[in-house]
């Protein structure tokens, strides 16, 4: 098992270099000169622009810029944004917030999604099942920003149960409402996924054996049905975590969460190479780590899966 983990970690290294090179190239290839944009609608002073370009190494050939950036990373220097802030600081401030938000969303979708899906699967065809199917269809069809604005309007503005926006420190309790919004669409998918998986598992031979052995219903459901139904759900959750990290942009905009989404969006618009590449690279690394954890989780869930042999 440990050999397997080591192999996976080593595989991450070429992915890291490949990703950074590719993203850096894409930012570099974007048309438009970010230095010109700094001047806004006012006139550009060519000499000043030339000095600024030199400051940000934008006058060097692409491969030189890339090597300067990579060299900086090994010193812990992720580059500087146009506003003079070290990108490392921006990373340290924004990623924890978005990760917290995504984790709340994952917990919500796990608990609600699996819970509802399990009950719906066990009571297939009954009213609970039909209602949850209809409800999940509704959630999938409503765009996330509509859900966001509506919930913000109802709970924050009209009822005053929550704050309309998230404050600078982004404490966990303020992230609950945005987390629910973020999780809303995934809840629908997980309900359906769990339900289908539970229905299929509940019809398997080993479940019938467990019942005929006299095990209590609670034990059969918990140990035999649920654990074995979870594999497709866990797969979806791990992919979803990566999607949530990135796709939280809309929700972060609505609730003004000081996270990755809007910082990255502004950096892309302004053409700030080091910022964009640093953010995307960290996201890729997180994604790889989550994928590794998911694969390890499979082994825990299904004894038929083994690694390293």
């Amino acid at each position, binding site marked *: 098992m440990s050999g397997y983990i080591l192999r996976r970690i080593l595989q991450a290294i070429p992915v890291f270099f490949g990703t950074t090179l590719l993203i850096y190239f894409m930012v570099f290839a974007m048309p438009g*000169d970010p230095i010109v944009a700094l001047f*806004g609608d006012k006139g550009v002073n060519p000499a000043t622009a030339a000095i600024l370009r030199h400051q940000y190494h934008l006058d060097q050939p692409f491969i030189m810029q890339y090597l300067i950036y990579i060299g900086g990373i090994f010193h812990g220097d992720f580059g500087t944004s146009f*506003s003079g802030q070290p990108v490392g600081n921006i990373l340290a401030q924004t990623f924890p917030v978005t990760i917290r938000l995504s984790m709340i969303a994952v917990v919500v979708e796990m608990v609600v999604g699996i*819970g509802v899906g399990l009950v719906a699967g066990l*009571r297939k065809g009954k009213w609970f099942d039909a209602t949850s199917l209809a409800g999940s269809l509704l959630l999938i069809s409503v765009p996330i920003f509509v859900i966001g604005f509506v919930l913000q*309007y109802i709970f924050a*503005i009209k009822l005053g*149960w*929550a704050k309309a926006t998230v404050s600078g420190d982004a404490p966990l309790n303020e992230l*609950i409402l945005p987390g629910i919004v973020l999780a809303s669409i995934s809840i629908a998918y997980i309900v359906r996924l769990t339900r289908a998986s539970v229905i299929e598992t509940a019809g398997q031979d080993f479940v019938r054996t467990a019942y005929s052995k006299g095990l209590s219903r609670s034990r059969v459901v918990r140990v035999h049905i649920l654990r074995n139904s979870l594999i497709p759900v866990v797969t979806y959750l791990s992919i979803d975590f990566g999607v949530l990290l990135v796709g939280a942009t809309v929700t972060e905009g609505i609730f003004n969460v000081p996270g990755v989404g809007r910082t990255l969006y502004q950096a892309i618009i302004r053409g700030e190479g080091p910022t964009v590449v640093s953010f995307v690279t960290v996201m890729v690394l997180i994604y790889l780590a989550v994928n590794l954890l998911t694969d390890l989780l499979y082994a825990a869930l299904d004894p038929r899966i083994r690694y390293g042999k």
Partner: protein
Amino acid sequence: MRVNKIKFAAVAMFAAAALTLSGCASGGGNDNIVSVNGSEPQNPLITTNTNEVGGGLILDNIYAGLVYYDAKGNPVDDMAKSITSKDNTVWDIKIKDGWKFTNGEAVTASSYVDAWQYGALLSHAQLNSYYFDTIQGFSYDKDSKLTGLKVVSPTEFTVTLSAPQSDFPLRLGYSGFYPLPKAFFKNPKAFGENPIGNGPYKLAEKGAWKHNVDISLVKNPDYQGARKALNGGLKIVFYATLDAAYADLQSDNLDVMAGIPDSALKTYQSDLGKRAVMQGAAIFQSFTIPGRLPHFSGAEGQLRRAAISMAINRQEIIDKIFNGTRQPAADFTSPVIAGWSKTLAGADVLKYNPTEAKKLWAEANKISPWSGSFQIGYNADGGHQGWVDAVTNSIKNTLGIDASGAPTATFAEFRTAITDKTIKTAFRTGWQADYPALSNFLEPLYQTAAGANDGQYSNPAVDKLFTEANSAKSLDAANKLFQQAQEVLLKDLPAIPMWYGITDGGYGTKVSNVKFGWNSVPILYNVVKN
């Protein structure tokens, strides 16, 4: 049994969530601190390098320069005791004595002169360097000290311009002209994070600027000018979107809001009632047709430009696209500026007149028949698609030619194409005044080879009128000459004026005495917390 447990757990979780959510809804009560929406400054907070509204809002509140602008845009002395000149070329500036920066340093004439020298020097690459380009000694090409600045005494200095400028005192309220303490020159980088000023407010503490989150300012008890704060401090929150800020305003989590999101334009006046703000602004919108485009130069060009201008039904577009929140342009400046006139000779070219438009277009076709399509370029990330499409449709329907918008993906790309002169279409242009004077709307845009003259327009008659206006003996005389220059512009139409922007915003129930200035920025030092 299991099912009941799940139901029970679900109910318990919902209750817990509701309780936690409600626990944080009571966050508020910020004892005499006024919260306002802002945006993260694009650059470190250095006065000579800040040219956008995010940084500008902060700097205007922590610094006091020679003059400040009142709500109408009239300059009022802040630190200046007198600004006089016999010939509009050599200006003698006397400042009040005894003012201090918040780190204890005295504010002297050198504080101004050294700051201006820093901003003007080429190798410092300051974005506001063009502000000093009328001072003797300035150079865009090499490092050159401003020979026109002389310190006479700690409370007096002289400014010698390279050419007369009748409205020079009007410019001195702009943030590029603020003084800077010696602490800045010791370490500009660190200073940009924690700027030290001499204005109505100061940073609440070191590190008060939380990037991308907010910045907290407190009242500066040592400020001696006329803008004394009527509240205890400001909290400028950086919002990602105006929608989020508006949601906070509605739930009374935000005190003052500058700007209203498009989604709320129709409803904000009924939502906020008396607390809604709508007034004029020093914002001018147009689209520029460079002379190098085929069919748009010379006599043919004049006919075509006039035809296009008269083919646009500005009022209808304003009503449909902007919900009536704009004012059709009658000149090239803004109604909030002294000297604006809506009765300039030739202003009829800005009124919708389809018959005349068709007639002029046909006359132009006699000189050289039209071919191809007329396009207006714009940046897709600026929310301009609506009006550009409406304008080109108006042109298409009136003149019967093919017309459409030509979007570029980002602002950077758009401006690069304009600066490099590689853009092949007409393009959207706009101007927000740096200081409340007609010259600021005209000279940077329409003077030959001026910095923001994106269409490379050049007319010696206009240049001559500008020079005469700058040497005029009084502001009224100068404004008359600027109006004459605009009458020439109305014939040449280097850019087609569209409309003036408006200032919109609002405030919550916890504050009062909220007024917005000529530059669409709320006058925060006068806001009182109820």
